[in-house]
């Protein structure tokens, strides 16, 4: 019983720590410094959405013993699944680039060594972990270290804000100095950051790696329903830090380094060190997850053997796909592209790819051939359908908003 509780607690903690990635860090800080907390409602909507679909894909993995993408190809055929593959793969590789850039930027904060020099080191470290470290260990260590981002929540309390004033910012409204189009552009970006497609593929394939069965459904549900919302609270605390310190100073976040300023003001060097550790862990964990998602989706679509539970020699093409994705990441980042800009674009393009990713999951979760008695209930279907409508609206509006607002001005 005691070990069961420990397993559950560990799962929840890693879900909290692993929830945030470079996209969440940057987008929440940018939004907090420009809009205060008036877009916090989007994080709430995004967290409920990711809970709904992560739960569905976890259930598919637990009940069928197979990853979502394998079933999508079998159920919807190679053409539809191919479209899904192209869309989600493009976004996942873009997200991987952003995460590797995020690791490099976070390491720069701790060393003052230029981030471009850290990129190859970061990629080598990611590859070594993918090659050598067991799945559970990898997931637990990065998730638990990512909990250091709680430092942002601590900073909010230490800064001692006027809680009434901060609370009043939660009401959705467009600030005077911003246009409605820019407000909605960042709403879509925040939504994309919360619901990045790689998360569900990683979650379902991770379920297979962890050999989930129907008995693990309750644990999976708890991880999702407790861990993700608490992770969402961390997102909001990053925006709150920016709203309390950066917004009044007229600072618009355009680099990751600015995230340390509220922590410094609140808790000094110790808190800065804690949040830097959290940033490295969050981006490193997300780089592992996105690299794995690349390997998972390609291998599951093409029917290659996959998984970290197999030795690399037994899943060579799965590992080769991840290595190629990492090489692409280094190549792009070495062109001197701004990792923060890549991150901002990756969350917007995530929003574009969302319906293609999530519709098949809803279809599979309703197929009795795979799910038996565990097909979605009416409540989950209503929720899933409502979210599909939101996803389509976000996807359709993302690119026009990006053009009209010049990517948020």
């Amino acid at each position: 019983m005691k070990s069961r509780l420990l397993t559950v607690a560990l799962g929840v903690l890693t879900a909290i720590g692993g929830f945030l990635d470079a996209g969440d860090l940057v987008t929440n800080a940018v939004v907090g410094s420009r809009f205060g907390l008036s877009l916090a409602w989007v994080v709430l909507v995004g967290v409920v959405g990711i809970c709904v679909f992560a739960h569905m894909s976890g259930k598919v993995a637990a009940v069928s013993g197979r990853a979502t993408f394998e079933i999508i190809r079998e159920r919807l055929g190679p053409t539809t699944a191919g479209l899904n593959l192209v869309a989600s793969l493009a976004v996942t590789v873009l997200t991987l680039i952003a995460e590797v850039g995020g690791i490099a930027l976070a390491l720069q904060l701790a060393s003052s060594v230029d981030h471009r020099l850290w990129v190859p080191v970061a990629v080598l470290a990611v590859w070594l972990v993918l090659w050598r470290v067991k799945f559970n260990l990898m997931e637990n260590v990065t998730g638990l270290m990512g909990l250091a981002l709680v430092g942002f929540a601590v900073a909010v309390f230490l800064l001692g804000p006027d809680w009434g004033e901060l609370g009043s910012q939660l009401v959705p409204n467009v600030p005077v100095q911003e246009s409605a189009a820019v407000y909605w552009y960042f709403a879509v970006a925040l939504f994309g950051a919360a619901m990045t497609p790689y998360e569900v593929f990683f979650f379902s394939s991770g379920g297979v790696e962890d050999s989930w069965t129907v008995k693990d459904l309750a644990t999976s549900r708890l991880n999702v329903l407790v861990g993700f919302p608490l992770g969402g609270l961390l997102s909001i605390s990053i925006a709150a830090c920016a709203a309390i310190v950066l917004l009044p100073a007229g600072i618009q976040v355009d680099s990751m380094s600015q995230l340390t300023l509220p922590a410094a003001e609140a808790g000094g060097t110790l808190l800065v060190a804690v949040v830097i550790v959290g940033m490295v862990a969050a981006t490193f964990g997300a780089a592992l997850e996105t690299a794995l998602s690349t390997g998972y989706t390609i291998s599951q679509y093409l029917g290659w053997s996959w998984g970290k539970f197999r030795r690399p020699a037994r899943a060579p093409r799965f590992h080769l796909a991840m290595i190629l994705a990492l090489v692409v990441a280094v190549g792009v980042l070495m062109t001197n592209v701004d990792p923060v800009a890549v991150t901002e674009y990756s969350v917007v393009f995530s929003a574009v790819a969302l319906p293609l990713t999530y519709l098949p999951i809803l279809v599979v979760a309703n197929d009795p051939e795979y799910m038996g008695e565990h097909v979605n209930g009416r409540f989950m279907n209503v929720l899933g359908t409502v979210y599909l409508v939101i996803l389509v609206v976000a996807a359709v509006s993302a690119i026009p908003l990006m053009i009209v607002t010049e990517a948020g001005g």
Partner: protein
Amino acid sequence: MREPSIHASISSVTNRPDLPPARRWGATALVLALVGVLAGCGPAATRTDDANVLGSVSDHLDDSSSAVASAELAVRGSAAGRLPDVTADVVVGDAAETATGAVHGIGTVVLSTADAEQVRDDALDAASGAVGPVTAARTWLGRPSSSSADEVLRALDDAATALDDASGAVRHVQWARTAP
């Protein structure tokens, strides 16, 4: 020989009897889109255009102000021992990059009237003037004994005030141009 008019040229493409109706409409739309793009690329310096360009100058000034404010917070944090020197160095380094980018951004805008150009030049002076204090802040972080934090902060404050004034002037001209 008379040269064919643009209308005649478009008609020759879109009214070809061998094209099915759907493709004819498609060809018409394509030609109109091309004409639209070409028209959009032509010189159209008007009062409203200047107002839009001044909006871009205003955005660059905001970036510059944001960089100065970031540097100010980093210097205060470092001087108070609340921000590690290596981290403060990265914050100020990024701020210097932003401030330099803003100067480049303002320096490359093209305006059509003399008074708008004057405002742009003042904005350019203010943005250029902000780069020095930000880079001086980075120098101070590397060698705190070279000057006092107060001096560095005072220079950053002056730069912030100059940027505010320039921003006000830009917005005033911009408002005057968009007002009916």
